[in-house]
């Protein structure tokens, strides 16, 4: 059942990053599954207006004022008119917001609920509870997530974090991990894909497992670090650990790629210890170049202090690197034990873990050449898209409560404000009840915001009536041979008028008939 989905986040290409590529990959795979996906983000330097990416993925770069690290200024209501216009012209049914630091996403979820749309939120990051910024972000998150239909987290740790931060019912939070495009991260032993190779299906051309390559006791081991050089990525830890690792292991070299505010500290450390010939700084690398850097090494070191998922370690393992990482956040869930050595996020343990990993590699105890195939089986975006689609089915009422929440008996734990499990009522009074529970003062403030938002919605309906808004044409789709009934709407531009609510009704009728 195809949906019209709007992915909303402040973070999108041309800016590189994990959230950005997550949104892109998920969107393309959802389009492949027959859905219509658009992306709404703010305007970047030299990137404004409406654009199309591969496969008809439409991107709206809304002109907005950027405050800090590509995050827009949180103006609670100013986004509503243009958001409503986009939603109506694209006939959106599900609004899917990404990243908890994106104010655009929070606003969109609030407005979408006011407009009576289903909403999903994906959290990509972990937050603390103590400092002022976290408290503020958490309150904002609580506001938005009081009335969201479903939340997706990238790891179980992230789920726990989000559930605590936003006081959510754990049942309405799903875990869907990130994935990698394994074809883009092949080890050196496998040839890189040529365009003609890409056309053949990966299953038919079964590549044999390459012969294990042996490392002699005197051969050089290269350790790769690719990360943005920020405090939360553990650059300080790295700066402290590198001289000690190099001192105790003479045949080890470092390659560090990435840039950030901590780059100067790193350079100072190299100069102070005179390590220029053993530590190579590459500066910023583009995402498509990451593989070429990774395959030059044997070990990938990931000293991050907080990480919700850590896509980069999956990419490293896919390239056939042994991974040394800190045991923080969602990282322990990501890779199986035989691919990683964990360390506590402290200097001594990181040095010890790296030493252990070097010893293991020298002893040739690790079959790193098998990693690529294993990772390929574990992570695929198609799988992520399927699971996300199931969430969409659940919130639109296509899946019944028992199907969606497996092993849960209905009517037991739901609050009074919730109607059918997982399907939140759109009635303003029900929404207000949900927001009111957010806190003594915050609850009232949030209710006020919601009421203003609703009045704004009513005003907009009068000021810019729905009938005067042009419906955009859908990207023309190839008609797939199987399942002709499924693709009935691929032709005309003004198809798929059924809203999520109609769909829900139809489902109810079906169940009645049974």
């Amino acid at each position, binding site marked *: 059942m195809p949906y019209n989905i709007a992915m909303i986040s402040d973070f999108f290409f041309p800016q590189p990053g994990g959230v950005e590529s997550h949104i892109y990959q998920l969107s393309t795979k959802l389009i492949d599954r027959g859905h219509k996906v658009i992306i709404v983000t703010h305007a970047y330097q030299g990137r*404004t*207006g*409406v654009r199309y990416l591969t496969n008809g993925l439409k991107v*709206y770069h*809304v*002109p907005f004022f950027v405050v800090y690290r590509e995050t827009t200024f949180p103006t609670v209501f100013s986004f509503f*008119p*243009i958001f409503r*216009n*986009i939603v109506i*012209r694209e006939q959106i049914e599900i609004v899917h917001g990404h990243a908890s630091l994106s104010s655009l996403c929070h606003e969109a979820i609030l407005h979408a609920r006011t407009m009576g749309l289903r909403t999903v939120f994906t959290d990509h990051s972990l937050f603390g509870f103590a400092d002022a910024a976290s408290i503020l972000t958490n309150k904002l998150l609580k506001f938005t997530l009081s009335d969201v239909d479903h939340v997706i987290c990238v790891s179980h740790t992230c789920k726990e974090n989000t559930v605590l931060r936003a006081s959510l019912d754990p049942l309405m939070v799903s875990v869907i991990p990130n994935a990698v495009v394994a074809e883009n991260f092949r080890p050196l032993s496998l040839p890189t894909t040529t365009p003609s190779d890409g056309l053949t299906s990966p299953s038919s051309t079964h590549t044999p497992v390459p012969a294990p390559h042996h490392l002699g006791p005197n051969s050089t081991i290269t350790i790769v670090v690719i990360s943005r050089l920020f405090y939360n990525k553990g650059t300080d830890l790295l700066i402290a650990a590198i001289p000690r690792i190099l001192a105790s292991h003479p045949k080890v070299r470092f390659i560090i790629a990435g840039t950030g505010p901590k780059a100067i500290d790193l350079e100072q450390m190299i100069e102070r210890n005179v390590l220029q010939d053993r530590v190579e700084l590459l500066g910023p690398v583009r995402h498509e170049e990451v593989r070429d850097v990774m395959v030059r090494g044997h070990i990938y070191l990931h000293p991050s202090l907080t990480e919700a998922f850590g896509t980069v370690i999956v990419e490293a393992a896919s390239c056939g690197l042994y991974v040394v990482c800190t045991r923080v956040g969602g990282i322990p869930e990501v890779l199986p034990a035989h691919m990683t050595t964990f360390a506590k996020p402290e200097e001594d343990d990181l040095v010890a873990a790296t030493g252990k990993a070097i010893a293991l590699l020298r002893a040739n105890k690790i079959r790193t050449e098998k990693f690529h195939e294993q990772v390929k089986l574990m992570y695929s975006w198609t799988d992520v898209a399927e699971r996300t689609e199931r969430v969409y089915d659940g919130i639109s009422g296509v899946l019944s409560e028992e199907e969606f929440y497996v092993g849960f008996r209905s009517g037991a734990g739901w609050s009074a404000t919730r109607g059918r499990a997982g399907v939140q009522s759109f009635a303003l009074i029900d929404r207000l009840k949900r927001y009111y529970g957010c806190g003594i003062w915050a609850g009232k403030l949030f209710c006020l915001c919601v009421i203003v938002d609703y009045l704004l919605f009513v005003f907009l309906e009068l000021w*810019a009536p729905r009938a*005067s*808004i*042009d*419906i*955009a*044409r859908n990207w023309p789709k190839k008609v797939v041979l199987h399942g002709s009934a499924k693709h009935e709407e691929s032709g005309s531009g003004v198809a798929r008028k059924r809203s999520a609510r109609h769909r829900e009704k139809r489902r109810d009728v079906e169940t009645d008939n049974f």
Partner: protein
Amino acid sequence: MFPSSSHPPTLHTTAPTPSTTLFTVSTRSPSHTLLARSLHYLALLLRVIVGIAIIVLFWAKWRQRGGDEAQGLGETAWYEDMVLSSPVGQMAGWAARGLSWTWVVGGTMIGGWAVTRRGYTEESLLVLRGLGIQTSSSSPTYLSTPTTRFIPTTAIQDIFIHEAFKGFEVRFYLAIVVQGEEDVVVVFPTLLPNRHILETVWRGARACLYEPAAAKA
């Protein structure tokens, strides 16, 4: 949303020859009934009368500027006499005597603006096969000429429909890519009609600009 008219833009296509097409988008109300048409002409007549009255009032005030010495000269042309002795002239003279200059100037400016205002917007695209495209936008008043722009066929690189943010909404627009220019030329820039109109114009313009496929084969 639509400037100075409640009527949504409508499209009129005229093709005097197979190689010429004129697409006109206008917010003017389509007057087909007798009542609507007579109302339209009545309004036009009223505008002319009010316009004349304003000019005569201003002129009468101007004549009284000199006061007695102008009267003393007594040299008035026959047409001046004719105008001043007519009922309109007498009324204007009486009003001019009663009103101060500020009132007359203010009233003349407001009245002049109201009378010459067009009240609707009309934008057109003229396609001439082998020659080029001319875009035209009507001026807000009857006094000034429409702004036109001619683009020769050799300079036209492409013509397409795209979307853009305009105010608080996303609008479709028809654009022409001109060789050697950084910005595209937007057709119907003030009206920005809806997608159906734009698609009709786009198809028609392409069919007229480039030889139709049937003619080639």
